[in-house]
């Protein structure tokens, strides 16, 4: 085991006793949990030279020498080609890394390398203060703190460049093991370009949910760094209320372009929500809700669920309407009521005593009503009683408790 800070002071020597000063190591980031070292770099006459790691014959740990067969086998690497390699010194050392076990971002103060089966591999990132002392003492201080070492298997390395993902740079996607809330929280600690890179590398469904729970200002910063195709995909997958909040912040031209590109159904929902000012009930409601006609039986309703509500945002409560065209609100049933085994009609089991909100009412008062009602959501109707959407308890809390806005609350939807 050797720390990279120590390894950097090793000298390269070939069989003809030619010497060169070590410059960097490249690793194959995606090859296993512990990336193997692939190339050795040194500088010669201001040129950046690359030598395949297979040319390394022996590492003399005592003499601090890396013995290679022939330094002449090295090839010059241009600045442009240098970008193709993941370099330990140049890219990973001192960079922000994600420690997935502790769900935090931290700087890699040093890197631990290990020789296993003749291969040198990146084993851990040292985030301790001891690592800094080792580096500045130039070998005089050698203590390693085990508690500061983070197994590379649980580390995600970001470059701070969203375009790196698009240009095919490798990522382990270990981050996808975390929940969307945890990813959003981690992204909150990162500079916005790192956060955008994180969103870019996630699968679209997870990226959309993660984006939803980020604070709205961060959502905008990140969204604007995505390419248009991914932006369209994410807007199409986001809950309409979250998508409307985000789209509402875009420049009108950009907003129009996105609304024309996302699927029509989602676009219509977003547009419906954007018709209401943000300080009204319509401005905080969601219109992606479950509703069924009152004349359906429980059995018929149950059969419709997979087809109609598999992608619906808010399904905890199912609103019962006169018919699907006029959508005049009649009552509500809880989703669990639809698992009862009988042929009763929905209008016979629904709760007709429900409070409603008007889409043009003040949002703040309505939010208090939802919270005080202890309901998962309160339906929103127009003046004629037509069901327009619902204000969920999450949206209500977010509206009245500014501190909660730091991280979006999306439990019920």
């Amino acid at each position, binding site marked *: 085991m050797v720390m990279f800070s120590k390894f950097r002071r090793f000298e390269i020597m070939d069989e003809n006793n030619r010497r060169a000063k070590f410059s960097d190591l490249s690793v194959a980031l995606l090859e296993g949990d512990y990336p193997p070292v692939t190339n050795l770099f040194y500088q010669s006459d201001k040129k950046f030279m690359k030598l395949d790691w297979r040319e390394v014959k022996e590492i003399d740990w005592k003499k601090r020498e890396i013995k290679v067969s022939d330094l002449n086998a090295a090839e010059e690497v241009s600045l442009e080609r240098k970008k193709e390699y993941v370099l330990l010194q140049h890219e990973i050392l*001192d*960079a*922000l890394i994600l420690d997935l076990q502790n769900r*935090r*971002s*931290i*700087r890699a*103060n040093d890197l631990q390398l290990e020789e296993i089966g003749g291969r040198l591999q990146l084993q851990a990132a040292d*985030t301790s203060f001891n690592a*800094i002392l080792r*580096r*500045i003492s130039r070998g005089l201080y050698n203590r390693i703190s085990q508690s500061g070492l983070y197994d590379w298997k649980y580390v995600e390395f970001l470059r*701070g460049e969203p375009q790196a993902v698009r240009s095919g740079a490798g990522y382990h996607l270990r981050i996808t093991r975390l929940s969307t809330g945890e990813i959003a929280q981690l992204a909150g*600690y990162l*500079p*916005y*370009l*790192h956060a955008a890179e994180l969103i870019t590398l996630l699968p679209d469904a997870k990226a959309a949910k993660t984006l939803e729970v980020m604070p709205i*200002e*961060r959502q*905008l*910063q990140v969204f*604007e*760094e995505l390419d248009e195709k991914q932006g369209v995909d994410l807007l199409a997958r986001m809950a309409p209320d979250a998508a409307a909040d985000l789209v*509402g912040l875009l420049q*009108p031209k950009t*907003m*129009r372009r996105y*609304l*024309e590109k996302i699927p*029509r159904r989602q*676009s219509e929902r977003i*547009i419906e*929500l*954007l*018709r*209401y*000012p943000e300080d009204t009930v319509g401005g905080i409601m969601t219109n992606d809700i479950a509703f069924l006609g009152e004349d359906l039986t429980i059995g018929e309703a149950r059969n419709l669920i997979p087809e109609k509500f598999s992608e619906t945002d808010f399904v905890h409560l199912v609103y019962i309407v006169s018919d699907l065209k006029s959508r*005049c609100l*009649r*009552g509500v049933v809880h989703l669990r009521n639809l698992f009862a085994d009988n042929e009763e009609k929905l*209008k*016979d*089991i629904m*709760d*007709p*005593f429900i409070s*409603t909100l*008007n*889409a*043009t*009412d*003040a949002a703040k008062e309505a939010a208090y009503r939802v919270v005080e009602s202890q309901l998962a959501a309160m339906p929103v*109707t*127009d*003046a*004629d*009683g037509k069901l327009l959407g619902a204000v969920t308890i999450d949206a209500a809390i977010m509206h009245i408790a*500014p501190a909660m806005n*730091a991280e979006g609350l999306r439990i019920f939807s």
Partner: protein
Amino acid sequence: MNNEPTPEGLEALDSINAELPTEPRKLPSGIRVRIRGRSINLRGLKRPPKGLMRWLLILGPGLVATSAGNDAGGIATYSSAGAKFGYQLIWVMLLLTVSFAIVQEMCSRLGAATGRGLLDLIREKFGIGWTLFIVGIVIIANGGVTLSEFVGIGAASELLGVSRYISVPLGAVLLWYLVIYGSYAKVEKIFLLMTLVFFAYPVAAVLGHPDWGAVARGAFIPTIKWDSDYIFLLVGVLGTTITPYIQIFQQSSIVERGAARRHYGDEKIDAYVGSIFSNTMSVAMIIATAATLYVAGKHDIESAADAAKALEPVVGSSATAMFAVGLLGASLLAGAVLPLATSYAVSEAFGIPKGVNLDFRRGRVFFSIFTALIILGAGIALIPNVPVFSLLVGVQVLNGVLLPIILVFILLLVNDEGMMGDLKNSAVYNFLGWATFAMITIAVVVMLGGQLLDLLGIKLFGG
């Protein structure tokens, strides 16, 4: 469910709906947008306010950071410049405004383009050695200046008739509470409101009945004196105006405010307005003391409180009160900005979560550094006869060493095309930036050289 008896006082939805008001609330007009061939009125689009409000909302980190530079030490330097040399140093302030604005704007641009603070970038691009060197100096220098701010709070409150034993702890608790429990947006608003106290200085300047012709001559006809006091004050004015913590704070707060590279523009205005505002206030301080103390022959001013006290017999208690109010506000503002700049710097250097928006659980190190500096600053300021002046001289030396280094890093970073893209420095900016670096470096060499030679008993200049 509907088989249950209807509870008394409740009616089914049908009857409730029948009683709902049919007149909907009148909604404000929205923006008409044509989407997929349909013209739709959208009221939910968030548009920036127009008119004066829009301009006021642009102001933020730039104005706060640059105003914090007019702290107790700054007021002392500018007052001393006015008391000792009248209006002769005003031209330096005009020249410095350009440099100041350029440097502050580059920091804003770096913050918006990268989303990272200055120490984040220095660590990533220049390594741990330089980072530790800078962070070490920042902690010591900012700690010393924070102490001087609390001494300033105490002195100003005593001029206004309130004991320092009340004002210093009270000020410390207020600042601590504001930053620990406030959001970034709230803290920024309060800081912006605090900058209003600086208007006390133009009022004090007018109360001093200056000779405006002489002011104009001082502003537009450069005077150079080969006199050690003049040269050192000139260097002092330079070092007080452009100080490392102002750049660190500005870039970090731009990042925390959420500026992004695609909309960079407003931050530029903020940086320019802040620099112009701050230096205008500095000029007002010079004019206020030049018109009164210099004319009355009171040339030796060591602190801002000295200047305020000296004003009383010359122009009366109103100017003194104005000076004291300004000093109190300036010290309070800098008393919060300096520990914050330090917390940002340390957190960025080591990759620790940072930001006023965090809660204490998530920003333990960030808030602990802030808290420690506030407690140390306020605590030491209450000890009688603390040698603040000698301490400030030491701090000035440290900041002097740091400033050229920080400027080089800013200039190198802002020219990194891979990182900055379209926001890379233009040729004009580079010329002005490197000219500022040269000017600052000469000033620092003169200051440090002068102090060294002074220790050896050698006089560099006459006078």
